[in-house]
């Protein structure tokens, strides 16, 4: 698979461009913004990585915000009794 000439990029990556492009496009399909519109395969890898880092940070932030929300809500309810119905509604 990596029979093509290796990238002369410095650093510890000793894999071919193909694999990077492949993985980067896989990442790209997960990111909400880049997915729409650009069909170009030449979206720069660094931009994708940048978006990925930002996206992960945003997700962490959302987890924190939701945890805050849940901590306030938890005071008023009892998760035990409702667990089954929650899971059912979540899966649907």
């Amino acid at each position, binding site marked *: 698979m990596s029979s093509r000439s290796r990238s002369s990029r410095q650093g510890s*990556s000793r894999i071919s461009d193909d694999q990077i492009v492949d*993985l980067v496009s896989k990442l790209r399909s997960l990111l909400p913004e880049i997915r729409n519109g650009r069909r170009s395969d030449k979206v720069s890898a660094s931009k994708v990585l940048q978006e990925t*880092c930002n996206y992960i940070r945003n997700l962490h932030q959302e987890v*924190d915000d939701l945890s805050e929300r849940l901590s306030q809500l938890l005071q008023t309810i009892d998760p035990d009794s409702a667990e089954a119905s929650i899971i059912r509604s979540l899966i649907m």
Partner: protein
Amino acid sequence: MTNPGGLRSSFARIFLRSLSRINSGRVSSSRGRTLPKHRSISIAAYASMASAVGTRRAWSREVLRRIRRGGARRASRRTSEFPVGRKGRKEPGNGKKLKKEAGDGNEGSSIQGMRKKLRRLVPGGEGMEFHRLLAETAHYIKCLKTQVGVMRSIADYYTPV
């Protein structure tokens, strides 16, 4: 690839159990210090997701490792990283073999700079070959999305209309 429906319900089940434990005050923190509730919840969320994923991904193994080491001992939110376990911004001295990036410095928009940031954001990313890091990142993001989705559903469920 994991079936997302299965992951979603596994995570939801484990997380809800943690929530009821937290709610009834049965969660003890290490070092005798009481965590603020939202902090317990957020740690429980990451822990539940890592448990749901199991040990077959490097990032989930790393999360489980950190939690076992003592979930309360983690950096405060001064970094944008995953909140459990990391002691600081510096490179971790916990014995993982590090691949030094040849290009140093903070080249913010270059690939090197981004790779470094990504390594810090994804649990266990520090010692990994870049190829693997990208694959782990993709899976990590997918699970984070699931986690956020379930947490939001739970919060919406309990929010009084």
